[in-house]
């Protein structure tokens, strides 16, 4: 079982993990994810590979508490083991070198930019990271990303740090020619609503854009079809054909509706976990 080497609380609901997983670290590429499970009878949940260190044999993951399973993950500390970690799954981000790559991270999505910016900067691309959050204290990984990319832009809804406004507003300015200039490729990773807004922003000016879709998954290996996303009118399996797809081809309406399929059950699981935790505390 992979052991957790280090943890760091990034915000009250977001935690950084470094885990020992040499085989996965050796083959991981930007854009891929792992499936994890933290207890017998537990769910398999997909988590993006934030970064990897092939020499040390470690993976970095960033998990945001949204429901029962992510809460269980975030309760783990250094020294604990994770029951199952399988990966790297999904395809890696494959874009031609030499251009200006702009990665956009919202929420835990910023984490995925770590290995992305490092690899693209290293191979000679010009790189820009735009990070968005509601306010300064919810912003994650800006300092870690600075040494990895040429530009780091911070946007907050309330203006408590960086640009006041949405990442898409700042992106529109850059596309219009503001420094650091129009990107050749945009890669957006974060909440579905943000990724859809990015898709709309880049559609008119025709900037090639990838979004990292996060549908509900069961196996993550192409076996169930639960993760299907409508791309260009065709059903694609996010875990095998994705998770990154051409933003201008994705049907976000269907994707957002499908992600809410189990809201009722998810709430029940969360209430039950809270109830169990209370009982233990007492």
């Amino acid at each position, binding site marked *: 079982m992979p052991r957790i080497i280090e943890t760091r609380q990034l915000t009250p609901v977001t935690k950084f993990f470094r885990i020992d997983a040499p*085989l996965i670290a050796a083959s991981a590429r930007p854009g891929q994810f792992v499936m994890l499970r933290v207890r017998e*009878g537990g769910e398999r949940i997909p988590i993006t590979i934030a970064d990897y260190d092939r020499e040390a044999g470690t993976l970095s993951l960033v998990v945001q508490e949204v429901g029962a399973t992510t809460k269980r993950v975030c309760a783990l500390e250094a020294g604990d083991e994770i029951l199952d970690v*399988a990966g*790297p799954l999904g395809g890696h981000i494959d874009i031609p070198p030499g251009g200006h790559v702009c990665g956009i991270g919202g929420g835990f999505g910023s984490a995925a930019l770590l290995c992305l910016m490092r690899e693209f900067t290293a191979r000679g691309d010009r790189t820009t990271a735009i990070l968005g959050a509601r306010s300064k204290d919810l912003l994650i990984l800006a300092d870690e990303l600075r040494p990895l990319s040429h530009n780091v832009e911070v946007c907050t809804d309330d203006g408590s740090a960086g640009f006041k406004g949405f990442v898409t507003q700042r992106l529109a300015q850059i596309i219009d020619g503001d420094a650091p200039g129009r990107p050749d490729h945009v890669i957006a990773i974060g909440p579905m609503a943000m990724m859809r807004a990015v898709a709309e922003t880049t559609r008119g000016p025709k900037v090639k854009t990838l979004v990292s879709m996060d549908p509900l998954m069961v196996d993550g290996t*192409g076996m169930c*079809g639960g993760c299907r996303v409508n791309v260009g009118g065709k059903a694609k399996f996010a875990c095998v054909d994705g998770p990154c797809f051409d933003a201008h081809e994705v049907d976000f309406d269907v994707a957002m509706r499908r992600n809410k399929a189990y809201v009722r*059950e998810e709430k029940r699981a969360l209430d039950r976990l809270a109830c169990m935790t209370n009982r233990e505390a007492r």
Partner: protein
Amino acid sequence: MPVKRAEKTPMPVRAPQVRAHDFGEVNEGYTVSQAAFEAERCLRCQDPVCVDGCPVNVPIPEFIHAVATGDMAAAAKLLRSSNPLPAICGRVCPQESQCEAECSMTLRFNPVAIGHLERYVADWERTQPPSVEANITRAEKIAVIGAGPSGLVCAGELARHGYPVTIYEALHAPGGVLRYGIPEFRLPKAILDWEIGLLKAMGVEIVCNVIIGKTLTLDDLFNKMGYAAVFIGTGAGLPQFLGISGENLNGVMSANEFLTRINLMRGYEFPEADTPVRVGKRVAVIGAGNTAMDAVRTSLRMGAEEAMIVYRRSDREMSARMEEYHHAIEEGVKFHWLTNPLEVIDDGTGWVAALKCQQMKLGEPDSSGRARPIPIEGSEFVIPVENVVLAIGTTPNPLLTRTTSGLLTNKKGCLVADERTGLTSKSLVFAGGDAVTGAATVILAAGAGKRAAHAIHDALTARG
């Protein structure tokens, strides 16, 4: 010679109205006297044609004779000599189209219940202390990809030949379809676990959560890990969809997703287990194979009030095992034959409200040799349902072939492999089971695993 009873000794089953609401096994198994009685029905033919009907040529008259004389140890040994998964095959083989189809008794009477007797012997075997031990004598390490029946059997045979074997499995638990597909009420997981326990006792190592083609490549297995040969038993797990409108509505899923949520992830224990599955009052399952039958009967057990099969051909073209079909009827499953789904209808909130269908009639045989269904104009009708489960077939998963050079596949994505040895287009890489044949049966997968094990042994021995 004593007079033979015309009828098969019936398998005792649990009452349909009870069993349709839990996951306990449907068949209860023969008693000692039922087994002895049924074993006596076998004619011990000079030319036992039943054996030709069995894909692995189980010595049927011999093992049945051993049952008749009460020598269970001999029966078990005979059975195992050709079938490495008797407790499983006795339960899930389509006997009516294999061994029992050929049985001489069929000419005038019911065939001998070969499957039920096979199950009886294997269940007896599990009450005995296991008699295997690790005896690793070979230096060459072998890797097996996929822990379905083909991979498990291949690993077992190789271990018996003294090879150190490691099975790499993508999921968190071994078994393949036997774990995530075939439900507990047909194949108790305890039987699978017992078989896996035997393999481990023989020294087979099973490493879960490793996806070959992702975590490690096929070439890594040779170059980095030093394996001398590889067997690919990755199955045909990629589900197909119909491509009809409304297929992305909430409440529509593949049978693989439905069954995996319930079998592998223990969805029936939600919220004690974390993976939910929402089953509405009415469930339509599209298809009429074993997968469809498992899905439709599982929906009853998950609380559906009405569960139905929707199939565009007739019951004569259905590929499910006869026994499962009869059990499904007893449990109250409804059947819409000659019914083709056209569209899944939205309830206005993104969930399924109904399935729009069209009546069909049968025409001339098509390329599959089965009568081609032809739509009847103006026969559209709507069935109100809350779930639509698609069991219309699966194809091999491309994860491994996409990342491996030099591994040939055919048009359908199946690996190209020699029928006798399982050798693929890559040297010292063998394959078998659904990954080669497309979705087939447990016994064919097991047989292919065994043949490949012998071919691997031959190849490595010849190499010296």
